[in-house]
């Protein structure tokens, strides 16, 4: 009985609607998020509240997301890729996986965010930035009777042997930024001498970029070379971590956002893009202890966040060191000359 009614209704519906029906579907979009889970979740909920657009979200690291977007290139499933370090975004732009778009809110952004966009033909844009540095576990440092480091070159001291951790530049964007920063700071030859000296003190090259400071927080390691906002986050979470901005100066990353080319919901994607650049959206970071510097100059910042103005920043050349060719060359050199040395 049920079935027959159902069939009747559907036939009626077909007859009534004919072939020209236009479905009134609710606006929706798919977000690939490469920031931390709770930040992604907060962005999603706030955006849904602000616009009524349904968002489904996948959180993956920027490397994984890049791999996925590349694999899906002939049939994109995502609409916007938000967050994660800038290099894979630049690479996606270089390979034509993302679409150019100029938002009306761009004028509210800091210069570094805009220059990220212009260097990639408007296919990506900066949304936050963070400086590189390191953090150490104060308890372990004291327990081992070590002096407090404050510069890059301090890390070469023999007393830190087996106490320093960084990620493997082959697998982590953070570690590649470290390598590129050292090369730009000291010049290529001296930079590689530095990496060789550092290699002697390294106890493990981790796979993921922020792992060194996380293991330092748990007391599994003493000094971790990471982005400073990651170190601040551990300190704020209650771990005995002290954050250091190296005295020689340091490099930085620009967290980025891109619209995926040929996505299924281009209008919703642009709505998200515009919204994500507003001061209101960028202030949300504070609620989840994300201590990156927001791109929107009107957004609020936390007193715990590293103040980029007081840190000596190098003039990081994103287009040179973000290009595949330079990346491959530096990584190969690091592989051949540094990673094979005995520790």
């Amino acid at each position: 009985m049920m079935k027959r009614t159902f069939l009747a209704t559907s036939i009626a519906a077909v007859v009534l609607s004919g072939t020209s029906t236009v479905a009134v579907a609710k606006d929706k979009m798919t977000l690939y998020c490469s920031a931390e889970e709770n930040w992604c979740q907060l962005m999603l909920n706030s955006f849904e509240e602000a616009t009524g657009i349904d968002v489904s979200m996948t959180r993956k690291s920027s490397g994984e997301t890049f791999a996925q977007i590349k694999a899906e290139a002939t049939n994109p499933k995502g609409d916007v890729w938000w967050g994660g370090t800038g290099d894979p975004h630049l690479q996606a732009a270089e390979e034509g996986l993302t679409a150019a778009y100029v938002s009306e809110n761009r004028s509210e952004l800091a210069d570094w965010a805009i220059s990220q966009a212009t260097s990639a033909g408007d296919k990506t844009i900066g949304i936050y930035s963070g400086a590189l540095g390191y953090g150490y576990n104060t308890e372990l440092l004291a327990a081992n009777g070590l002096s407090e480091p404050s510069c890059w070159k301090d890390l070469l001291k023999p007393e830190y042997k087996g106490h320093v951790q960084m990620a493997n530049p082959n697998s982590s964007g953070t570690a590649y930024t470290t390598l590129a920063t050292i090369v730009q700071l000291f010049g290529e030859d001296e930079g590689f001498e530095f990496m060789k000296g550092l290699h002697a003190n390294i106890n493990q090259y981790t796979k993921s970029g922020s792992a060194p400071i996380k293991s330092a927080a748990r007391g599994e390691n003493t000094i971790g070379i990471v982005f400073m906002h990651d170190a601040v986050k551990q300190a704020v979470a209650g771990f005995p971590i002290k954050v250091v901005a190296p005295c020689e100066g340091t490099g930085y990353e620009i967290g980025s956002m891109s619209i995926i080319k040929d996505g299924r919901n281009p209008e919703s994607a642009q709505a998200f893009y515009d919204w994500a650049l507003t001061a209101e959206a960028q202030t949300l970071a504070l609620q989840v202890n994300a201590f990156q510097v927001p791109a929107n100059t009107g957004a609020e910042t936390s007193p715990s966040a590293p103040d980029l103005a007081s840190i000596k920043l190098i003039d990081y050349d994103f287009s040179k060191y973000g290009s595949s060719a330079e990346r491959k060359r530096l990584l190969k050199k690091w592989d051949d000359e540094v990673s094979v040395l005995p520790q």
Partner: protein
Amino acid sequence: MMRSLCCHNKTLVMQTARSGDVGRPVLIFWIIIGWLGFLALPWYAIEDGFFAFEWLFDGYPFDTDYAPAAFIVAQGEKLWLAPLVLPLLAVTAVIGRPKSDPLYATILIAASGFGLAWLVLQGFGIGLRGWQFGMLESLFGDLGDRQFGMGYGALFVAVSLLFLFTQGIAARGAINGDVFVVSAIGSVIALITVFVFFPIANMLASAFITEDQSYSIAVFFSKFFDDRLWGLGCVAGGHRCGVAWNSLFLAVSVGLLTTLLGLVFALVATRSGFKYKRAMRALTVLPIITPPFVIGLAIILLFGLSGTVTTFVADLFGVQPTRWIYGLPGIMIAQVLAFTPVAFLVMIGVVEGVSPSMEEAAQTLRASKWEVFRTVSFPLMRPGLANAFLIGFIESMADFGNPLVLGGNYDVLSTEIFFAIVGAQYDQGQAAVLAIVLLSFTLGAFYAQRFWLGNKSYTTVSGKGDAGVHPTMPKMLSVPVIFIAVGWAGFTAVIYCMIVAGSVVELWGLNNSLTFKHYATAFSVALEDNGVRWTGAAWNSFWTTIQIAAIAAPLTAALGLLTAYLLTRQNFAGKSSFEFGTMLSFAIPGTVIGVSYILAFNVPPLELTGTGIILVISFVFRNMSVGVRAGIASMSQLDKSLDESSLTLGANSWHTFRRIILPLLKPAILAALVYSFVTAMTAVSAVIFLVSAEYDMATSYIIGRVENNDYGLAIAYSTTLIFVMLLVVGALQLAVGRTAIGRRKSTGQQS
């Protein structure tokens, strides 16, 4: 349900009586399915999901997005679908013919063979952007049209044609005209081809792709013989060894250790007077229901630089704590903890299955207990030992979570593959080369195992009277065995105490005050006017995981045991390549499955990424081999005369399988069900590529928490999963029941 359980014997008689003529209704059924797919169901996949049924009200059946093939063609569009009507018409014409008519078979084979071939050709030939191959484009010119992924209409037609094809083959007299066996072989081959060979071939082809997208053998060889893979630095006292050697050494050690421990536990459980067997048995099964990296985390909490044990020992002896756990020792401990239970599940089926009659015969002939064990019991356990080793070896090779957490600088293939794809290098070719190395190791182990087993007979359960009780182990064996078992069980217990403790403290190691806030964050529930609101952060992934695991488990077990039945009980042309195919999925690490699946199934004709189906499929084909292994191990102990007598009495092969083999396979069924349910809930490596916004899995959520240093929430979620799985495993054990063979004690007996 109740009736089918209680009335075994009656139904057996009834079905035997009418088993003579089942061919005709089955034939008509498949023909109807085929027409249904062609005439009534939407041909292409529907973006918002078939079961939303929005398509019914949205222009069906005329809008080409939702139309059945017949309606599309009738409107003069996508005419390449039109030829599919021919095979359907041809097979319909066959209905009137007698089965003995040679035309019957010829028409079925020719028509459905053509239909299948055409379906595949048009699917691969025409894609999202028209012609898929430049050659076709230059031959026929621009198509001016395109097609999306296939949907239920295409699925029904494909399935119908496949089974009509096998009906035709059977009608020609293959395998004594046994329709069930031919159809089973046909469907397993089709499934393996589509979901194992196709994606893997697709992926491995990328090992030969150069940077400018052309193919080159030289690129492959330069990557394959790289020093980082095969370097022997560590032997010569140098820096470190190649990744391939690392993996091999680890996997062999883990395989040996898990087999040994699995045997030890199986012996204690079945052949000792040890008092606390049940408690120990429960404890040994715990690791199998634990997300693998959780064991890694617990080991860090115990033995890490600031671990409980490390600091205690360091204080006691006044030595400097070290990071010794990071690297080979840590991975090995975690993997042995994690994989011993699988070995135990395989071993116990075999140890229990060894017929006591043989052992009693030996005893009657005055053999001592030790001689009985050494010359009778142990040799009969060889299939189990070989299978347990193989599973341990391959699990270790494919394991991804533990090396990730504990690996230190000890790189293994599985993590290298992952980071070759997601790392800063994005080198798919490199990943494919590493995958080939991994594959050669696992297949090598597979053949070594077959060589060791040889052609001996391990049959002990025959239709003849089987009486007797297993003798207990000889003393000189039981003392060390119980000692090892108790020691390892105690270690496992400590690990689990750490896990539970870690989930109820504020911040491990720094603030050890008790709190349930991690559970609250993950699993809070709000009662509101309009019912329950699942407010916890973990609910979404939790329900998805349960749902997917519950769908995948029975499918996996069914496919695995069916394959095992075909392999042990039937002889057919190409059986060894068939076996190779079923084994292949087993030997491929999850990471590779994940990547090859998104590469293969993101584009038409099979567009599955972003759905829950792709997760189910990846679990089924990744885990079916455990069902196959367990099934083969158990079935090689069942005497063929059992089937033969059933067949002689007039039952067909389906009834023999259903009524004779299956009930004797309960341990294997249980192993397959439990294993597949549990891996579906705890697997990491394949899942991480296949989860989507809508279908997020528990493990990928937990890994996210671990990455975030949020150990409390990660461990709380894992603990909850462990309890859920305990419940499910217990329920499964009750539902499947135990095989009552002979006089041996059996609990939970039914019927």
